[in-house]
């Protein structure tokens, strides 16, 4: 196991180098020169050159790339080009609000999607199953933007059940008052595709011989579904869940913008709008690292879920 983990961590090095190179090339290719924006309304070439010198974008490409690599190694990405705020501080202060919305969402979405998927898989082919699938298909076809606009208008503005937007000072207030509607919207949007996917996983298992054997042995349907089927379907579910984990670092762009949540999603959009390369660099590297780490974690969890899995 230890040897496996070491090998996988070692394999992350070339992947990370590839990410660094890709981000660097992409930003320099399409990112635009930030000096012209930072210079203000009236500026001359000397002032623009001064800004480029201070930002380090006047350096040869290989020097800039080496600085980027050093930043990844030290975890110090410097300060934002537009606000001068430390990138580490940006990430530290914005991650909390994003996680306040996304962690409960992930938990609720997983519980609801698995529970409902098991239920409809159990009554597969019935009218209920078909109705749920139709609702899911319709739900999937509607953009999240529509959900946000409609829910914000009716539930917050018209009915007054939630605040239209905002963010408070206490965790409790943020979770139960300001995050409630964003979570409800995100849950409505995400539950349909997950339910359909998990239902497929469960249907694959329900048709297996071991389920027939369990029934023949007289086990209750509850036990068969919740213990045997769920456990055997857990590997693709874990894969799916783990693939979504790095997304927590990126926040929820639209939800955060519409509900004025000071999360990392809004910061990503701001950084792109302002060509704020230090922030973009840091986020890309962290997400890449989180993706690799969650993949490794998923592989380790396969082993825990199914002892037949061999880690090589």
């Amino acid at each position: 196991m230890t040897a496996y983990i070491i090998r996988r961590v070692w394999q992350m090095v070339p992947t990370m180098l590839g990410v660094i190179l890709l981000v660097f090339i992409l930003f320099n290719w399409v990112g635009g020169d930030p000096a012209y924006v930072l210079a203000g309304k009236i500026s001359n070439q000397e002032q623009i050159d001064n800004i480029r010198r201070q930002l380090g974008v006047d350096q040869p490409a290989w020097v800039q790339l080496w600085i980027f690599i050093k930043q990844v190694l030290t975890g110090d990405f410097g300060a934002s080009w537009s606000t001068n705020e430390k990138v580490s501080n940006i990430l530290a202060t914005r991650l909390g609000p994003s996680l306040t919305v996304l962690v409960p969402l992930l938990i609720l979405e997983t519980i609801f999607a698995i529970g409902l998927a098991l239920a409809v898989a159990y009554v597969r082919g019935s009218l209920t199953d078909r109705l749920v699938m139709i609702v899911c298909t319709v739900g999937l076809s509607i953009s999240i933007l529509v959900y946000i606009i409609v829910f914000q208008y009716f539930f917050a503005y018209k009915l007054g059940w939630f605040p239209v937007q905002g963010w408070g000072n206490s965790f409790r207030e943020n979770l139960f008052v300001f995050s409630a509607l964003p979570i409800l919207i995100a849950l409505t949007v995400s539950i349909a595709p997950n339910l359909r996917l998990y239902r497929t996983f469960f249907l694959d298992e329900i048709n297996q011989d071991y389920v027939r054997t369990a029934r023949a042995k007289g086990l209750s349907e509850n036990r068969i579904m919740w213990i045997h089927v769920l456990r055997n379907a857990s590997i693709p579910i874990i894969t799916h869940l783990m693939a979504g984990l790095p997304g927590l670092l990126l926040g929820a762009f639209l939800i955060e913008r519409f509900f004025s949540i000071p999360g990392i999603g809004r910061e990503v959009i701001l950084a792109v709008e302002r060509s704020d390369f230090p922030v973009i660099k840091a986020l890309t590297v962290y997400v890449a690292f989180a993706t690799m780490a969650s993949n490794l974690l998923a592989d380790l969890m396969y082993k825990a879920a199914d002892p037949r899995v061999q880690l090589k």
Partner: protein
Amino acid sequence: MIASCLRTVVCASKLVLLTLALAGVAPPSAAAANMDKVIRHVFPAAETGFDPQAISDLYSGTVVQAIFETLLTYDYLARPSKLVPMTAEALPQITDDGKTYTFKIRKGIHFTPDAAFKGEKRELTAADYIYSLQRLIDPKIRSPYAFLVEGKIVGLDEAADAAKKSGKFDYDAKIAGLEAVDRYTLRIRLKQPDYSLSYVLAHEPTSAVAREVVAAYADEGGRIMSNPVGTGAYKLAKWIRSSKIFLEANPDYRGFVWDYKPGAGPEDALIVKEMKGKKMPQVGRIEISIMEEDQARLLAFQSGELDLMNMEGPLAPKVLIGGALTPEMQKKGVKLSRFVDPEISYHYWNLTDPVVGGLSKEKIALRRAMAMAYPVEEEIRVVRNGQAVEAQFPVPPGVVGHDPNYKSSVKYDPAGANALLDKFGYKKGADGFRTLPDGKPLLIRYASRPDSLGRQMDEMWKKTFDSIGIRMEVQKDKFAELLKLEKQCKLMMRSAAWIADYPDADNFMQLLYGKNIHQSNNACAAIPEYDRLYEQSLRMPDSPERNKLYHEMAKIIEAYAPWRLNISRYRNMLVQPRVLGFKKHPILHAEWQYVDVAPGMK
């Protein structure tokens, strides 16, 4: 004996202060500002920070205006904008034919108490303004507003040059043009006469910053983006970046009594009735939310979560019918503060471009034809939702030098445009598109941003060019890249806008000055007649003679057509009924210190 008397006086003073404190009597401003009174404002875009000399975005500038103070400001109600003293005792004494400005600073103005002052009360002095003006040109700070002082003040550019060589700006070195005659007297000497300097000194980048605060809190770039300490009516209480900004009334602020003269119209009379004689500021707390999405802002305002909100163009049809509020909004008592912004938008052609540039007759004819074929009225109706007016004069309303009676000779006339092109040899081929007089293909590249407004403008211009048989291609690029190409005179044509930094015609007329190519002259126009008149205007104060020059310059713009002057947008500020005395100022960003909140109203 004397020492004993002094001791007695000091003791007595302390006793009086203690008694006042125990009796709950506070300085005038603290007594005026009621901490239960809150104004909830919204910005549609995130701020960047609160260093007056380092920021350039409108929203950071709004907060800066509430925290810091300039020498001069504007009368709250007077229209067009009228300069009045802020920390200065009076308007400056201008001598030496507009080359020397002398300010007397009011005594007894103090910075908000801060640890940087080590427990001492810190009084505002002339040296603070000298320091702040120097910061504008310090290369380390890379101020976006360096142009406000660059090339103007005697010795200041030389100090900046020395800083570039040494790597450090010497704030202690004497600068001939910036002199603290005594603790409260500031003298500024200019290289050339400049009658717009008073306006510059009412602009927030020239606000006074204390050197000790910069020394205590400056980041690597020498900026104090998150530690603003000023002498203004408010102080920063809490800041959640890009999300919330909380301001509180500055307890050390000197305060003032609301006494402004109303202009014509019932709006001003009501404001005076609501506010006259009140000690200001009345509002103790300002809560600013940053909400980028239109729907979220509007719903938050309609549900009473916001008190003040600027209506952006796309939102206008939801609450405005023509120029008035919908009956539903009127029923709620919502007020509208509306005026034409001191800005212009224009379409420019690059005068150094081989296809559309140059001052030959056929090139001028080509540009004029494009200008004549552009339907400004349609843009106002379709793209701007009726929230703009056609600009007739390069100097917009609300700016000194604006002439409301001036009518541009450039009119929408596609038939005339076609006739003009025919006359100058731009012949139509079999495909219906014109060629250059020498028979080579004629293709116009219109540059725009990849956003919704950019796409709408592409469509407007495509329609325009189709109407005169000119082939058009859209050049899409990111904003930063467009700016770069523009500064390098590498774009053929683009739409641009300019909002007043200060309300003087010079701020607009400089946009076509030949020496400003690669800076603000994005048409890269060098028209000798225009330049000559512009240089003449620089040496003149606001006067009928100077306005006459501006008229001649406007005619030159119409004749040579480096621009198609386009529109000026309306500013629509929505105000909840509980907010008293609000009138949006065309130049000032922050009006919180001039308003009140009705008790008990939600």
